[in-house]
């Protein structure tokens, strides 16, 4: 087990690369064995909410864990506004800036309910009820005839002074009336500010939302963040005793990492550690503690933008990687 421990010293890291290959050492054989992988590979979910997930992948290589992370960010498809047709915009925010802002609004649409667009088609034939969601935005700012006396707040003085993502209205096309009857398309975060208006100004536009991937544009990425860190390890070699010393030791780590029992420090929860290396700066702890990280223990954190649940995004990333491998397997190799 200690061969998967990355050493973290004051000014260097050690033992960072995987060596689990046949022929690397005479001991274990390390050849790929699916049954062995089934037995050793572990997943441990610590929390799973509508928007965030935190789970551990244990005994998997960095290259594969990193592939899942990269795919979640840039290759799991989702829906975003791609084309905006502006009919009228007398606000101070320019058409192209407004269009960009609308593109970045995360939408609550199941990506599986749409098909891919065919970019080779002419623009007038490209969008159908199978591949496009139409949203419209029609707002006009007016004066509030009876504002509260003495108010200087634009929200009270005017109607529609602020335009929010919730003002985008879903316009179901064709079969979408049936298909999206129970879950109409809305912005997943309704309170995103799109523009500010003053009396007499108005915005009227229509947005076409399509499927895309994050590698094409970040607006198509289904995750706000998808990241992993390696499991921290704190190894106390020599006992740390005494009220003053244990307190100082505790303060070198985030709260909850180090506990004190019978006036002696012990590692309570190393998972909470940020590996700040603060403890290595103090001469009194010199040689008493070793820091490290498990090279094959990944703590994933996935935050969804709202279209899909985070576990679904992870599932899709696994499927995308498998499809890549299977697709390439079936491709003929050109000489």
């Amino acid at each position, binding site marked *: 087990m200690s061969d998967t421990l990355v050493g973290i010293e004051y000014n260097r890291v050690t033992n960072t690369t995987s060596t689990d290959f*046949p022929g690397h050492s005479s001991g274990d054989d390390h050849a*790929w064995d699916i049954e062995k992988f089934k037995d050793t590979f572990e997943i441990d*979910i610590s929390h799973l909410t509508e928007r965030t997930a935190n789970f551990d992948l244990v005994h998997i290589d960095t290259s594969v864990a990193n592939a899942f992370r990269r795919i979640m960010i840039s290759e799991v498809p989702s829906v975003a506004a791609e084309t905006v047709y502006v009919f009228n915009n007398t606000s101070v925010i320019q058409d192209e800036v407004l269009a960009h802002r609308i593109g970045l609004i995360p939408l609550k649409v199941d990506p599986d309910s749409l098909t891919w667009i065919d970019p080779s088609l002419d623009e007038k034939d490209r969008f159908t009820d199978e591949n496009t969601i139409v949203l419209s935005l029609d707002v006009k700012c007016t004066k509030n005839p009876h504002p509260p006396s003495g108010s200087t707040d634009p929200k009270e003085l005017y109607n529609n002074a602020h335009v929010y993502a919730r003002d985008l209205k879903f316009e179901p096309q064709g079969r979408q009336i049936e298909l999206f009857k129970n879950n109409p398309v809305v912005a997943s975060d309704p309170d995103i500010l799109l523009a500010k208006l003053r009396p007499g100004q108005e915005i009227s536009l229509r947005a076409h939302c399509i499927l895309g991937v994050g590698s094409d544009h970040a607006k198509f990425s289904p995750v706000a963040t998808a990241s992993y860190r390696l499991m921290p390890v704190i190894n106390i070699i020599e006992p740390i005793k005494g009220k003053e010393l244990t307190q100082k030791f505790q303060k070198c780590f985030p709260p909850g990492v180090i506990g004190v029992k019978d006036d002696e420090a012990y590692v309570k929860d190393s998972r909470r550690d940020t590996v700040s290396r603060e403890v290595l700066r103090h001469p009194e702890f010199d040689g008493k503690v070793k820091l490290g990280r498990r090279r094959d223990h990944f703590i994933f954190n996935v935050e969804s933008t709202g279209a899909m649940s985070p576990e679904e995004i992870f599932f899709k990333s696994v499927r995308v990687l498998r499809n*890549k491998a*299977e*697709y*390439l*397997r079936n491709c003929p*190799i050109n000489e």
Partner: protein
Amino acid sequence: MSEDTPMADVTVEKEQEQEVDLEKVKLLPGSSDDGAAASFQVIDEDHTLGNALRYIIMKNPEVEFCGYSIPHPSENKLNIRIQTYGNITAVEALHQGLDNLSEMCTVVEEKFSEKIQAGNYNTVAP
């Protein structure tokens, strides 16, 4: 193929042919005559597949060397070099690697859905 193949079969075959990309992967110069060593170039792939595939091919005991590179960051090309000890060809090693990678993904997917179904996790963020 015999002359009297039913029409249905022909169309199915045509669809499958259209699905595979003839330009996706090609053999680069520098392969040995026995096929034990070869380099491949894959179009439209990056470190995501490259590094994972390199790892799984290196885990094959018949493979002596495997490495990958992205020759230029603005070209969507992935080069993979495979050298075997001679018992299998580089193409076989590549195919075994791809098969192993997809079975690995199947295990990950199964384990994850098992854990989701088992529940046993917090549904509120700490």
